[in-house]
């Protein structure tokens, strides 16, 4: 079921920019088209390009926002999410908590 | 007579106990036989069930209509007995959600609808042991309704049917099955007599099959 939906219409999460679009839907109540436009503008791409794995694979590595394949040294988890916060100008709860825990 | 039938039908749909009593009184004064009054109210209850499933009426309304019918039956029952017309008396039904399954609501609504339609409902609740269904059937229930909400528990419906066969009781009982994962194809496969997609469909089919 999961794979069928992903293949039929899904953005593919970190294969492309699905996680970023999802964050804008949830954090700003943006409908899908607005969320995609917002993310596309931040990335300097079109709304079709942000769902394109060929474009997004290298861009994600370059932007250090998490890649779908195992790349040693590439940020993942909190580190990737902190870069996402800056990229799309949003706060991410786990990053806020991480910062709170590491304050000196 | 047609006006009285419509008035009874409409009074049940309006689900007010007093309104139902009044419609019954009027029908009796007009000489309408008890059996026909009960049938007209039963048609109204079927409509109430459909309106419930379509979100137009809610459970308290269904029960209020049923309460009105129950009050009417207190008067009509003895008349029916005196006239010797027992054709509207319906079967005893054991109902339950099968063992291992705690989903209760759909089954309970179905029990309510059957009760409203005049069946003598023995609702055993949920997570009901196979033996409990069998015991009720041995005790006189001629219909057995089993609900299952999970693909892991729907197989118990088949198990009960197999026990009925093994004990030589299969021909004595009408087996009804329902629940989200249950389909007509599955009912056919396990040898059930009746499958209901909804509570009102189950009740309509139960009324038809038990006639």
């Amino acid at each position, binding site marked *: 079921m999961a794979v*069928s939906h992903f293949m039929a219409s899904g*953005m593919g999460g970190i294969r492309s920019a699905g996680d970023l679009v999802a964050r804008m839907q*949830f954090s700003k109540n943006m409908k899908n088209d607005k969320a995609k436009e917002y993310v596309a503008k931040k990335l300097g791409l079109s709304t*079709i390009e942000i769902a394109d794995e060929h474009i997004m694979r290298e861009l994600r590595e370059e932007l250090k926002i998490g890649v779908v394949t195992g790349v040693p040294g590439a940020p993942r988890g909190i580190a990737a999410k902190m870069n996402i916060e800056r990229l799309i100008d949003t706060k991410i709860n786990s990053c806020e908590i991480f910062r709170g825990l590491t304050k000196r | 007579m047609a006006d009285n039938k419509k008035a009874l039908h409409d009074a049940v749909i309006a689900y007010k106990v007093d309104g139902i009593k009044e419609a019954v009184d009027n029908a009796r004064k007009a000489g309408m036989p008890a059996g026909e009054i009960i049938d007209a109210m039963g048609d109204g209850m079927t409509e109430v069930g459909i309106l419930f499933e379509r979100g137009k009426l809610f459970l308290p309304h269904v*029960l209020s209509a049923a309460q009105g019918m129950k009050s009417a039956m207190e008067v009509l029952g003895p008349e029916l007995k005196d006239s010797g017309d027992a054709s509207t008396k319906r079967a005893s039904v054991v109902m339950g959600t099968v063992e291992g399954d705690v989903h209760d609501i759909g089954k309970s609504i179905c029990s309510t609808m059957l009760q409203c339609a005049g069946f003598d409902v023995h609702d055993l*609740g949920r997570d009901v042991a196979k033996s409990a269904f069998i015991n009720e059937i041995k005790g006189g229930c001629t219909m057995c309704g089993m609900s299952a909400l999970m693909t892991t528990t729907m197989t118990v419906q088949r198990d009960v049917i197999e026990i009925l066969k093994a004990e030589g009781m299969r021909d004595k009982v009408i087996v009804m099955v329902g629940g989200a994962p249950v*389909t007509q194809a599955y009912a056919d496969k396990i040898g059930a007599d009746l499958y209901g997609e909804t509570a009102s469909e189950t009740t309509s089919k139960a009324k038809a099959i038990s006639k």
Partner: protein
Amino acid sequence: MTQFYTRMGDGKRVTLTKEQILNDIQAGMADAADMAGVPDLTANDIEMLFEIISNKNRIVGVEPGNEVIVSYDIGQLDFTGDNGNSGNGVDVGRMEAALLHERALGADTFELAHADYSIKPVKPVIACEMQAMEEIQNEIVIPYFYGAMPNAGLYYAPDGPYGNPADLMREFRIEEAMKAAELTAEHLAKDIEYVAPKLVAAGADGFNFDTTASAGDADFVGTLYGVEALRKACPETYIMLGMAGESVMGIHGSIEYRGEAVAGKYPHQQVKMAEKAGANVFGPVVNTNTSKSLAWNMARSVTFVKECVKAASIPCHVNMGMGVGGIPMWETAPIDAVTRCNKAMVEVAKVDGV
């Protein structure tokens, strides 16, 4: 006459003519329009549904540019669960399941879930859930929720402290049944207020209330007040509220949320209540009729959901699983039917996610 391969609502393969498919589309649409008092689909919508159903390819998909978000519910249980919830019976850990969904299954969001997948049983194990959330948040990139069903049924006898309304009503104890439902709604809201902020404090991106109103109108009201409380406690958290069916079942009948009875509300009305409570994303649900065709079920579902999306000020992620969203009620739902329903929801109903 040309015959098209299609499905019944129980998943069985059948062949139908164009006329039969169009008749079923019309009938399914009419059923939804009549029930919910919503507009019919347009002639163009109907034509699109027919094209989707009659497409000769095994799977179909949306046009590039029309992709949407796929937000997954039920957490790791789709791996670890049994066939009762379409699980694979593979006992992977919750971390592994989360990362596999992110990296191998194209998930745009995912969630942590308790084996019982209900709010109430999370209370005694809240610390375990918080630790799992903290650990997985360190590794995952996609939005990661905590998910559970409000499941008000667990507050009624024999599982909970209040009388079972269905049983009480059968004994004509109507007032008592209604009171039990009201107390349950209050209890559920308090439990949500206890559980959900703790998981947000552990790093959850948000909370997914799944299968809301499965126990009827009091379940919905309790959840809405719980969502309000969560929104007040955690103003920035993501909240997804998904439903259990197209209509809110009136077990109480007149219980209200902010002065409005919720029983009998349809998706386009439900979403406005979810918005008022503070949800960010709404998940409409339409149940499948196993005796009707895919065309009937798809058209019916799309009719409800299209109006919901139109009425919504927040994004809508339609539920598209076994027996919902037009998809057949079958454990291994046929891929041809799943992808057709998906495309119809995205390109005709215009949902923001599935």
